[in-house]
């Protein structure tokens, strides 16, 4: 790593945001700026680059506190609209996970299961202000004598509600195809037989972690757009692994970085948290996330100028290899091709379809840009950045 000619601090950029003088562009707009003026000049001109992603993210859920009843109950088993929530924490706390399916759902016994309602939908209903039926059971103690509780709640009634997602915004992800001879229903969507379609899930050049591939500005305390409001990166996400093969520009060729995120559910908006029913697989939650990347130096300008053709993704067979636990890459494709609607793999042209909404990702990046420009959203300086590769292994 060469020393940088441009150096800015979080404090300086936040001061500019306060004076509404900060120059904010989206991760799409920075590409042209770096092209035209070079990374050094771009770093002088631009203060923040906004990113966005909107996709089903299964490792999501919310901690809810529903307040004490009289007589009191130690709610060890909890249901919200008949969707089981985890009650093995304090008396009236629970965690509703995005992929929990409503009780009594036929699941895949009628294949492929429809999975019309689950934890992701409970979260969407909560942020929509809809009434939720809370049901709880306790075993009765001297201090918590009640054994049953049933009541209608809305998000407003809850003393506390926080979205806490242990793994979101995967830096890169598999492209899924199906080499078998029957249609399969996966978390990567419907995959038609004999490689008839290739499904992917990323917002490419707009995706948060592609714009800071070594996590130099992302860590604990980074303020982000989460579900419509200001949230935070709480920790490296589960399965976060910086040490994967990378391109010359430092872009991981596979999974790599993830973030655990947290935010106040009460401030969130159903436009950015949408329940998902994935045919034959289960329920999930579409989560909208945007991370502002501070352009501290020319290195960050260069990274944030990542473009679709720089991003390579590996294709895997979900018919056989992935389910059996022996994933073997069938080849690499670029995100540019995926977004164009077709990829070429081993000489064959395959139509591609996303699970991630690029349109919503653009909306998030634009909205976050607007909030920063208006002085409503400030950068959060990370206390500690996410684990990255050793300094000597970092690219230029």
């Amino acid at each position: 790593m060469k020393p940088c000619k441009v150096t800015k601090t979080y404090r300086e950029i936040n001061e500019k945001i306060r004076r509404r003088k900060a120059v904010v562009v989206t991760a799409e707009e920075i590409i042209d700026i770096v092209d035209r003026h070079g990374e050094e000049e771009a770093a002088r001109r631009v203060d923040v680059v906004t990113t966005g992603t909107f996709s089903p993210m299964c490792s999501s859920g919310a901690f809810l506190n529903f307040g004490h009843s009289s007589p009191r109950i130690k709610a060890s088993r909890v249901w919200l609209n008949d969707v089981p929530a985890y009650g093995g924490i304090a008396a009236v706390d629970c965690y509703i996970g995005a992929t929990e399916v409503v009780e009594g759902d036929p699941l895949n016994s009628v294949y492929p299961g429809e999975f019309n309602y689950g934890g992701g939908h409970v979260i969407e209903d909560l942020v929509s202000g809809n009434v939720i039926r809370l049901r709880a059971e306790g075993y009765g103690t001297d201090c918590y004598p009640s054994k049953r509780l049933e009541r209608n709640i809305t998000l407003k009634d809850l003393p506390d509600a926080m979205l806490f997602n242990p793994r979101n915004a995967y830096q890169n992800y598999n492209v899924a195809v199906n080499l078998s001879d029957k249609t399969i229903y996966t978390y990567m969507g419907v995959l038609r037989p004999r490689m008839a379609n290739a499904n992917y899930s990323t917002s490419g050049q707009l995706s948060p972690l592609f714009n800071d591939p070594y996590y130099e500005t992302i860590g604990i305390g980074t303020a982000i757009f989460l579900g419509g409001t200001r949230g935070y990166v709480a920790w490296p996400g589960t399965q976060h692994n910086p040490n994967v093969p990378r391109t010359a520009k430092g872009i991981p060729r596979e999974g790599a970085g993830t973030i655990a995120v947290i935010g106040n559910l009460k401030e969130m908006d159903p436009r950015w948290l949408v329940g998902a029913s994935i045919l034959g697989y289960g329920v999930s939650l579409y989560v909208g996330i945007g991370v502002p990347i501070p352009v501290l130096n020319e290195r960050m300008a260069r990274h944030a100028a990542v473009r679709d053709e720089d991003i390579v993704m590996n294709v895997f067979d979900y018919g056989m290899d992935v389910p059996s636990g022996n994933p073997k890459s069938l080849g690499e494709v670029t995100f540019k091709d995926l977004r164009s609607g077709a990829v070429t793999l081993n000489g064959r042209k395959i139509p591609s379809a996303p699970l991630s909404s690029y349109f919503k990702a653009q909306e998030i990046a634009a909205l976050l840009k607007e909030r920063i420009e208006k002085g409503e959203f400030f950068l959060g300086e990370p206390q500690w950045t996410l684990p990255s590769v050793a300094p000597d292994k970092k690219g230029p």
Partner: protein
Amino acid sequence: MGTPANRPEEAPYSRKIIVRYSAEIVDKPIVYRLVKDFDLAFNILKARIFPRREGLLVLDLVGTKENFDRGIQYLKESGVFVEPLSKRVSRNMDRCVHCGACVAFCSTDALSLDRSTMQVHFDPEKCSGCEICVTACPARAMEINLL
């Protein structure tokens, strides 16, 4: 020949209808008139005469939109009760998140992703009504409406 290739402006218009009629007109040649006067092809999906001689017919009518509307008008004027049976798939714009997952399983390209705006478009004219999207759309944005 009335094939779509020869008459592209008159794509076949197909609707299923339920026709109920009273005992007084049960012996009138209603369906014959639909064919003769309005050039509508028909397929009888169900036909019953009840003990008091009221009748019920479920018909699939195929023709031009204009002739179909005139035919329905004729039926109503003849004193029979007509209601639609067929269903149509439509998109609830409030639920669509424009993810594009539907592009993978829509076999007629009625659902497509505009690669410049990255928004999903639904063209009901291309929809074959297979209804796969109704359960395969993760956001449940595709709905069945009774026509």
